[in-house]
């Protein structure tokens, strides 16, 4: 957290406590999440969105371009609506005729689209099967959609995946990561979805106007603001923190540092205490009544936030502790928002193993992180019951039973804890003072585990304390942790390998200024 500056945080929570999967899965969005970071930037920039092209028929099929100016650069949402799908891309600058022609071709074609280095991300949105036609029909008749349907559906459009950072031909993250507006994670992807939300409303209104003529009305600000963009998050999202330990460490570190700073405050201002209580009152979770009763008594005279958090850690379930943690950060933007700049990292690619490190030290590093797993009996079938693999052209991995599954050649290297245990055992055959470079020469198949052990040496929150191939693994907890950092609210989470969520629900939904087309 260099560069974050004072004031010093009060003792951070230990990784062995925080990095439990059950707790990670209970995390809630907070003001350091990537959606709030984007919304703060958009509100600070104060610049509107221009709709420079909008051409669609009565079915809502056609093309549109929305341009936003973020100060030093402009970005454009290019969209092609065809059938029930809307292909969207975030383009660098305002697209010229040639770029528009090229994008019109590929965004109207089959998914996944293939774009060029002038695009930052792409996605394919689907209209909500129930809400979309209802909104169009209501507006066409001069009425607003029924509030209960708006509340139930939550979004006019849904997307399964946003491809960015080099995927599908988009520009590489390295080439744009130093831009202030894109430095925090997922800012381009979320900006695209935020613009797509304005587009979805405009498309519904255009369809209603085509159907209802002069009697049609625009979507009122209330429902427009209530509606977000839906996300189906799959196992690709679950694997992300495992595949990016250094990056995930910076996210966790920023959040824990922020909590530490708030706990270190000597006093609580009355409005801040009340704001946190109000947020908690508006959230559903087990333990809410006890927490609110405790807060009702008012802040302790000294270090009130630390006092409240310490009480919660003893008295409340983990999920309630994490609700409190996220809520506690809200009134303290001036104290913690700078930490949002510390949530990017390139060490996942750039970190190189130090082969001079002696074997004994590497074993100690592994034991320090995965000590609990060294004691376990790994011959138990349930300990290695699952395997992650990629199938056909699918973009998300699958998680299935090892026995009868596709087999070792297809297995993805996500069995981090098992691999660490295996490496620890192999290392044990060498004298402690041997440089680990020799082990790596003899056993190149332990490079990943030894590299991760060295990463854990400087990145305390890099490793999740959970066996990801255990029969009882709940992969949706990994997805929920990712969604919390993204700033997405879980919508329905009934399945183990897929969670429906949404972003921007309740966020401002400005009307784009109409220019030309």
């Amino acid at each position, binding site marked *: 957290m260099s560069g974050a500056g004072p004031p010093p945080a009060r003792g951070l929570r230990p990784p062995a406590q925080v990095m439990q999967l059950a707790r990670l899965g209970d995390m809630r969005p907070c003001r350091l999440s990537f959606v709030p970071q984007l919304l703060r930037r958009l509100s600070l920039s104060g610049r509107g969105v221009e709709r420079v092209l909008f051409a669609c028929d009565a079915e809502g099929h056609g093309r549109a371009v929305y341009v936003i100016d973020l100060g030093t650069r402009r970005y454009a949402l290019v969209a092609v609506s065809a059938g029930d799908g809307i292909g969207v891309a975030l383009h660098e600058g305002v697209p010229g005729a040639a770029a528009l022609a090229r994008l019109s071709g590929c965004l109207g074609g089959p998914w996944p689209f293939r774009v060029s280095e002038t695009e930052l991300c792409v996605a394919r949105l689907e209209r909500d099967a129930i809400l979309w036609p209802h909104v169009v029909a209501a507006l066409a008749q001069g009425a607003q959609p029924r509030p209960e349907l708006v509340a139930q559906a939550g979004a006019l459009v849904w997307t399964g995946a946003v491809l960015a*950072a080099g995927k599908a031909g988009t520009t590489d993250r390295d080439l744009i990561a130093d831009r202030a507006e894109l430095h925090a994670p997922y800012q381009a992807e979320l900006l695209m979805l935020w613009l797509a939300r304005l587009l979805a409303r405009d498309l519904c209104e255009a369809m209603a106007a085509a159907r209802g003529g002069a009697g049609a009305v625009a979507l009122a600000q209330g429902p427009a603001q209530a509606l977000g963009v839906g996300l189906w998050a799959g196992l690709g999202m679950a694997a992300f923190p495992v595949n990016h330990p250094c990056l995930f460490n910076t996210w966790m570190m920023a959040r824990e540092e922020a909590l530490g700073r708030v706990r270190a405050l000597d006093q609580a201002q009355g409005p801040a205490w009340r704001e946190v209580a109000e947020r908690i009152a508006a959230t559903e979770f087990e333990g809410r009544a006890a927490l609110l009763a405790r807060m009702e008594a008012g802040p302790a005279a000294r270090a009130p936030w630390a006092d409240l958090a310490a009480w919660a850690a003893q008295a409340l379930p983990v999920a309630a502790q994490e609700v409190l943690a996220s809520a506690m950060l809200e009134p303290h933007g001036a104290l913690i928002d700078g930490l949002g700049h510390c949530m990017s990292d390139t060490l996942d690619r750039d970190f190189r193993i130090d082969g001079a490190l002696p074997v004994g030290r590497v074993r100690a590093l592994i034991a320090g992180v995965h000590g609990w797993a060294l004691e376990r009996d790994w011959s138990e079938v349930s300990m290695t019951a699952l395997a992650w693999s*990629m*199938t*056909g052209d699918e973009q998300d991995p699958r998680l*299935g*039973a090892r026995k009868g*599954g596709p087999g070792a050649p297809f297995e*993805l290297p996500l069995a981090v804890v098992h691999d660490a245990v295996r490496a620890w055992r192999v290392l044990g055959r060498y004298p402690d003072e041997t440089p680990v470079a*020799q082990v790596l020469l003899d056993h190149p198949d332990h490079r990943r585990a030894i590299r991760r052990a060295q990463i854990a040496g400087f990145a305390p929150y890099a490793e999740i304390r959970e066996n990801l191939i255990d029969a009882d693994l709940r992969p949706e907890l990994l997805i929920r942790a990712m969604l919390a950092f993204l700033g997405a609210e879980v919508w329905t989470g009934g399945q183990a390998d897929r969670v429906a969520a949404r972003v921007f629900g309740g966020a401002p939904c400005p009307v784009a200024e109409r220019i030309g087309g």
Partner: protein
Amino acid sequence: MTDSLSFGEIEALARRAARGAGLPWDLADEAGRAVRILCAAGLDGAAALAGLLAEIRVRRDPGLAPVRALDRVWRGAGGALCPIRTGASLSDMARLMPADGVGMEGVLVPVLILPFAADVARMLEGPVTLSWRGGILSLGPEGLPHAEGMDKMMRVHQTGLHLHPGGPGLPAAKAQTRARPEPRALAALEALARRTRAPVGAADAGD
């Protein structure tokens, strides 16, 4: 539109191709990263890796790695060295690098060593010099330069190499923004990469 690939795409493809050719993921990671760095420096890393993977498959030789990390001259049991395994060891050994450097005998597709030599320079925070019969190349700590020697090395199939700290250290080249691999190499890597994908239906048995 497919005339260029992002570096992320070429890295992911190279990584999967190396795994598909039978390397463990651990070395496939290294291969993918090396290809990305070569492409960013304007060299066709995909063609280099396709050449190497074809060669490894023909040789089926498990002894393509140096035997002892602390030796002054690295030799494989069969007389040839894989540039990925050897390069990874170079990078591992950066902090233990003797002042007079380390020799490597019979390195296959030696251009794939370059990214790892650049790692050594970066970790030592100073230039390193790589020499072989027919060429010499000095790399600075900021990354791969643009030098004639690199194109020359691209054409070498197998050679002995010597790497030592020091030398003039050419400045890093301005990085490319896209990878432009030769279509045949791309096709070869794609074919190998497909082997890492379970056939549709195979995973269902386990669901």
